[in-house]
């Protein structure tokens, strides 16, 4: 909701943000030792952990595609993630977000490189505060890169909403529930392609156009944070690799050496 200060008539959001200001985003990659790739994201009060497994054998086998890998997603909210407690059984909403996440990530992954196998993404919402589907996509794309899965680009996601007839970026829980409209968008920043666009509520045509622009700006900000998170794990930027590192040709020769 809004607050008007009498003198300047400045409009501020319920948590004191500007209309185009994101919540504080923190991303960490490689947090789960047993997963092939993982990421943890804090987006405002959202806390989400994501693990990626694969490419691995598809189970059940008859579901495997002969020409490409299958991207399997699971979006799940922990019972304690919201107040009041939520049933841990997958709900209709969970199923929808699972599907939406898959559609948002599929265009970025080279699935055709791994026929007959599956790539599994598990997203667990530990604490929810609005905009979990966008935060999940952000975490999942970092986790996919961390798993070493070949990708065309990272996927960043950000929502834009309408409240008091004004457009706002990155809705919190309150704004999501009390607002007039909500438009989540996932975007590949380097390829400049939109991979997900949903909308709830009512917006004018001009407002939708403006909202998409705002969302893309938000995605670009998140992209920079994702980049930093991936680089941070290696703690290096310009460190040179060892001079006698085997070239790509040498990499294939395995030597079995036994002590005489």
């Amino acid at each position, binding site marked *: 909701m809004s607050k008007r200060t009498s003198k300047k008539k400045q409009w501020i959001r319920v948590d004191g943000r500007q209309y185009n200001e994101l919540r504080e985003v923190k991303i960490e990659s490689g947090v789960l030792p047993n997963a092939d*790739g993982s990421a943890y994201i804090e987006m405002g009060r959202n806390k989400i952990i994501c693990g990626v497994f694969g490419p691995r054998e598809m189970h059940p086998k008859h579901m495997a595609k002969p020409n490409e890998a299958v991207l399997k997603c699971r979006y799940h909210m922990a019972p304690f993630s919201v107040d009041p407690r939520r049933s841990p059984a997958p709900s209709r909403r969970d199923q929808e977000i699972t599907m939406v996440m898959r559609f948002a990530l599929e265009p970025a992954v*080279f699935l055709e490189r791994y026929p007959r196998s599956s790539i599994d993404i598990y997203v667990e919402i530990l604490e929810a505060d609005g905009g979990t589907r966008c935060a999940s996509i952000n975490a999942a794309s970092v986790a996919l890169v961390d798993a070493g899965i070949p990708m065309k680009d990272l996927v960043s996601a950000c929502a834009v909403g309408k409240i008091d007839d004004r457009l706002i970026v990155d809705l919190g829980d309150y704004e999501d529930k009390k607002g007039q409209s909500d438009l989540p968008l996932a975007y590949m920043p380097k390829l400049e392609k939109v991979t997900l666009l949903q909308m709830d509520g009512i917006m004018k045509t001009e407002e939708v156009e403006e909202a998409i622009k705002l969302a893309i700006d938000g995605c670009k900000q998140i992209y920079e944070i994702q980049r930093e998170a991936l680089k941070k794990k290696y703690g290096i930027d310009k460190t040179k690799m060892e001079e006698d*590192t085997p070239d790509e040709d040498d990499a*294939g020769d395995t030597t079995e050496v036994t002590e005489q």
Partner: protein
Amino acid sequence: MSATFQNRELVIPGDIIYEGRIRTGENTYRNQDVVIATRLGLVNYVKDTVSVIALQGSFNPMVGDLVIGEVKDIELGEWVVDIGGQIEASLSIPDAVDQPYQSSFDMTRVLDIGDTIIAKVVDLDRRKTPILSILGSGLGKVNKGFLFRISPIKIPRLIGKKGSMINMIIKETGCRVVIGQNGLVLIDGSNREKEEIVIKVIEKVNQEAHISGLTNRVQEFLKKLKEEKN
């Protein structure tokens, strides 16, 4: 026609690593006039090729790879072997015992479910299933030693150029070490302490594979470990 990064700089999927015409190497793809990275890694510009040395990734079986795997199942005339790739490998009787298939042949006598084998990838069939063989010196069932798992992408670093790294480890510790391209390492030493040293060294290689001067650091690390033991 120019490189957009410095050589050996960290790149992320989607980064444009070259503008213009050039041959695309590993972990890259071309999008019209630019070359883009597909994996997190260090960009490598060599003469007329641009590639990315991946820092993360799974095992992709290739013909000629030495692998260490576990027999998962016995089917008609073949063993199904888990070698950690995305597809399970198969080992048929002619590739295991050098004799043609006979229905009366008792396959469990050669290899049973749960056995660990050292094998070579001799072929990939048209569905990209790896075909293994255990005919050859050093191949076959593993009877002693234990297995240690590292990231398959770091195996070339553990071997070193022309085996420099692994030969040094073997020379210093006196253990038998077999490296499978799928990330499994078989360690077999005369006593537990020696094997422990090998594990510590392999762990260090796994963690610091991307930082320069690896061989020298590992050599010092080995010396330190040996002194501690004495």
